[in-house]
């Protein structure tokens, strides 16, 4: 907390409370204490006063209690010598300011001075009783409900209370348009040296009123109180709270009403005091002048007060600067923007995902055998990118002949408060689905083996390289809005830049591989659950650790971690490991407790690294099935794509009935195929060397990975010593094969 702000806010609060006191006493002297007071069509009396104090004020006399209460909230400004915490005092003075401001507006209502007269102002949609030539004043209950529902259900992300006067009319219009574009409700009040943003918009012919989501409250700072009255009533209406439950009301606003204050122009004591009032609600203040900042978070979700001097904002024009200011405000408040449509010239949807573009129908391709394409998504600092900015660096494909190829690199930069470097590959991999959703576009591969084809039909409709960026931007916001705040895309075709970024991307891929290799169970605090399949296997819980991915192969530990961030109530929940019960078998207190609670108490002990002792259950979606072959002192691995007979005397589909359904059956379990390459693969039984039989298609598709495993196990020829359906479909055939090859399992200690 800045002491400067504290002092100014306390001075401002003291002044306005005194003013309220004088105005009130004068009004009582003129009109009597019984004179009725009320805002426009509301059942919430004077709403801010009701919220803070529980008092249902309906006449002037009752306001005396309010002013008296305000005085108890005022404190001495912090001294220059004495250093004490003063956040509390500042917030109290903010509260006093709000109550005093509402008192003043109530008195003005009684005297017919509110809503304020503004010559020539014609509102489109208003509840103000004055008709044309008046500001709106407070929002009535009917409009509150209509907008409140949209705020609660998320159609409207929040509101912006703009106080003061923008640098120029151009800046004022841009600010408003940028907010409107994002469906953010705009409240206007205040002035700087007699000139208000309301005047600016009026001069520029911007329509104001309920219908355009722009509500001019009045031309002085005090009228900004109507914004907080609106916020208070939101909590009372939609939060089920009653007057006086101020703590709940403030918390409701902090967590559910995404509002912020834009302070334009010079900030005087009263504005500081009002800002302190807004901070009580968790609404941060962004000023376009040089003021002391309050950056640490606490009362607000992120920064409290941010100074963004207009002259220092990057940009050539006031329009550019205003645009950036709105962007920053949205970040500070954490407002999430929804993008529903993908703005590209071809149809878009998951129905197009499977589409193939044949060579004859192809206009151009990136990657494949004749060129290189890569995709690289990286996390960057929020200040370094601009959301929605899409740039193509280098020529487009107009010079490439039909059916030709071209090098292309797509660099996607994302920023977000909840983004983590670990999520980069999770998000990057989604590009495959995202790009494939466009009709006439085909996407294969990932990283630097990306291969994208544009069809002639899509290019004829106007599809270009930039549209790849549009897709990434729209879809990342739509699918990963919980972790991504900003997305900027740069597409490189310029040969020099392409090479430069390809090198950077490859370095990042390498670093990720190293990170993944280092990501081991003993280095993390939590595993993740997956209960997606409980609809048909009610007692099955997948425990997903860095070294054991989900048995369906679709979810690894990082995917689950991201999924949990995106959907905190979803099927992937963190499982805190807790005390280790058995390090060899992979048993922890935390995983046991979680599985017990989530398997309808059917399973109370799970070994992550053992097939013989309390193996993990399976739903039925497993990529491979691992089963004990006691005669061979080892296990076989059957791929779900393998229809042939196995040495167990049963085919995959028969065996699957035994392994699935959430039952714990020692000696048989379902796994994801990449678990085979893990160091923890049935580690309790001796690991991969136990594999005596494996479907040949697995050997083929995982040839490289399995070779590495064999080397790691110190037996480079191990894969050749493993039988498959071509060499053995019975135990009688299997044993001589293993003898002949000298399979290590035969001499290992007994598995049973």
């Amino acid at each position, binding site marked *: 907390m800045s002491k400067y702000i504290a002092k100014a806010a306390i001075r401002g609060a003291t002044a306005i409370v005194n003013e309220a006191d004088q105005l009130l006493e004068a009004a009582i002297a003129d009109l009597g204490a019984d004179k009725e007071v009320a805002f426009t069509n509301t059942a919430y009396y004077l709403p801010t006063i009701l919220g803070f104090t529980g008092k249902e004020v309906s006449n002037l006399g009752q306001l005396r209690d309010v002013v008296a209460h305000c005085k108890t909230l005022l404190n001495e400004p912090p001294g220059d010598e004495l250093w004490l915490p003063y956040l509390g005092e500042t917030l109290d003075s903010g509260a006093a300011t709000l109550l005093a401001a509402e008192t003043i507006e109530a008195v003005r209502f009684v005297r017919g001075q509110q809503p304020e007269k503004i010559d020539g102002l014609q509102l489109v949609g208003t509840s103000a009783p004055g008709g044309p030539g008046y500001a709106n004043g407070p929002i009535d209950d009917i409009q509150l409900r209509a907008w409140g529902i949209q705020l609660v259900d998320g159609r409207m992300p929040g509101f912006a209370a703009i106080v003061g006067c923008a640098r120029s009319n151009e800046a004022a219009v841009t600010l408003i348009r940028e907010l409107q574009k994002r469906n953010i409700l705009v409240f206007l009040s205040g002035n700087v040296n007699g000139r208000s943003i309301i005047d600016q918009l009026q001069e520029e012919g911007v329509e104001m009123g309920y219908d355009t989501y722009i509500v001019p409250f009045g031309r002085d700072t005090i009228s900004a109180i109507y914004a907080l009255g609106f916020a208070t009533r939101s909590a009372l209406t*939609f939060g089920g709270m009653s007057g006086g439950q101020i703590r709940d009301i403030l918390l409701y606003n902090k967590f559910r009403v995404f509002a912020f204050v834009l302070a334009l122009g010079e900030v005087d004591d009263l504005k500081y005091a009002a800002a302190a009032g807004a901070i009580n609600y968790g609404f941060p203040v962004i000023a376009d002048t040089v003021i002391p900042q309050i950056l640490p978070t606490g009362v607000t979700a992120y920064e409290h007060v941010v100074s963004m001097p207009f002259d220092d904002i990057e940009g050539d024009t006031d329009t550019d600067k205003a645009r950036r200011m709105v962007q920053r405000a949205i970040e500070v408040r954490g407002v999430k923007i929804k993008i529903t449509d993908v703005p590209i010239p071809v149809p878009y949807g998951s129905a197009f995902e499977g589409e193939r573009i044949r060579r004859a129908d192809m206009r151009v391709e990136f990657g494949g055998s004749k060129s290189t394409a890569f995709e690289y998504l990286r996390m960057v600092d929020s200040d370094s990118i601009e959301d929605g900015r899409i740039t193509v660096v280098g020529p487009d494909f107009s010079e490439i002949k039909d059916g030709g190829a071209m090098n292309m690199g797509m660099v996607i930069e994302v920023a977000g408060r909840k983004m983590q470097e670990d999520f980069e590959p999770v998000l990057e991999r989604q590009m495959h689905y995202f790009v494939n959703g466009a009709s006439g576009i085909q996407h294969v591969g990932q990283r630097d083996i990306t291969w994208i084809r544009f069809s002639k039909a899509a290019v004829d409709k106007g599809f270009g390289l930039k549209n790849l960026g549009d897709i990434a931007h729209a879809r990342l916001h739509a699918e990963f809005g919980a972790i991504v705040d900003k997305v900027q895309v740069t597409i490189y075709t310029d040969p020099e830049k392409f090479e430069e970024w390809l090198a950077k991307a490859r370095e990042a891929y390498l670093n990720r591989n190293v990170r993944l290799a280092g990501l081991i169970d003993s280095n993390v605090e939590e595993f993740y659950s997956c209960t997606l399949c409980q609809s048909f296997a009610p007692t099955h819980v997948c425990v997903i650790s860095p070294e054991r991915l989900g048995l369906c192969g679709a979810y690894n530990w990082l995917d689950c971690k991201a999924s949990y961030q995106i959907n905190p109530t979803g099927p992937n929940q963190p499982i805190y490991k807790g005390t280790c019960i058995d390090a060899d078998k992979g048993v922890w207190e935390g995983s046991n407790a979680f599985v017990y609670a989530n398997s309808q108490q059917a399973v109370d002990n799970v070994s992550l690294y053992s097939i013989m002792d309390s193996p993990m259950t399976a739903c039925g979606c497993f990529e491979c099935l691992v089963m004990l072959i006691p005669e061979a002192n080892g296990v076989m691995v059957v791929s779900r794509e393998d229809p042939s007979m196995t040495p167990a005397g049963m085919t995959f589909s028969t065996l699957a009935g035994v392994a699935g359904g959430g039952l714990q059956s020692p000696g048989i379990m379902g796994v994801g195929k990449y678990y085979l390459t893990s160091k923890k693969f049935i580690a309790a039984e001796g690991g991969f060397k136990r594999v005596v039989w494996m479907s040949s298609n697995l050997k083929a598709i995982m040839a490289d990975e399995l070779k590495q495993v064999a080397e790691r196990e110190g037996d480079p020829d191990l894969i050749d010593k493993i039988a498959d359906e071509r060499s053995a479909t019975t135990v009688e055939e299997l044993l001589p094969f293993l003898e002949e090859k000298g399979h290590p399992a035969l001499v290992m200690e007994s598995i049973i």
Partner: protein
Amino acid sequence: MAVPEVKEKYAGRIQEVTLGAGSRGKTVAIGGESTLPFLHFEGTVANRPAIAIEVSDREPDDWSPLLKEAWGDVMGDPAKWAAKAEELGADVIALSLDSAHPERGNTGADDARKTVRKVLEATTLPLIVYGPGQKDKDNEVLVAAAEEAKGERIAIGNAEEKNYRTIVAAALANDQVVIAKSPMDVNLAKQLNVLIGDMGIPKDRIIMDPTTGALGYGVEYSYSVMERVRLAALGGDATLQQPMVLTVGYEAWRTKEARTNDEVPQEWGDWAQRAILWEANTAITLVNTGANLLVLRHPQSVALVRKAIDRLMAGA
């Protein structure tokens, strides 16, 4: 030899939810039990399962002729229909604003308000109001219905995972009850209850609809899902303790057995009897696995189900 003690002691209890307030002549409480259905020896079955009769705001053109025969002319007027349903023994009126569906009339918020007002005036019973099941129209008409019926504590639905915010907001703003519908899955039901609860609506204003199939069309699956929901709830899982409502009439009357008598084997017997039993049997099955509120269509199945519930509650 001593008889072994078989009583279970459950840690959890089903939330009680009351429908109806204000001008309603009667209120209906559902839920509140501390044991599995009708195990009166073991715990309390605080409230008997209630029966709602479904009333549409538009003369249904896809309902069985048997239903048209049973209700007659009132089917053209939701107010008269509701009054007759009350007469025939409904505890609750389930008003379906089906005419708001874009392909079935596309009526809007104003029509919804008028219909709700009319039906509120025609009956003293508490109301459930269902939207047409199309996202945008649900949001439009349910908000209007919730506002129009402010103070009457009606239930509005369905709030589903893909579309719950607006409906819950409307319930919050107007003190109504919300129906949380999930597709036959314990975890999805749980998740939706959590999401809806996160919006700040109190637990005594959420009813869950875990979705059912009719007899022969998956009732055993929903039986099992509901059984698991109930066991988890009684076991102490607070996110599953909401009472359950099921749209049995809708499910039963779209089965081939109930819908038609064309080209069916003779041994299927009398059509009307078969159709009514189909609905009643589905309902009674589900009551035995924890259904607290049943939405039915035929007056005779209402009578049959009521009789069965009377007997099941006899030991209370």
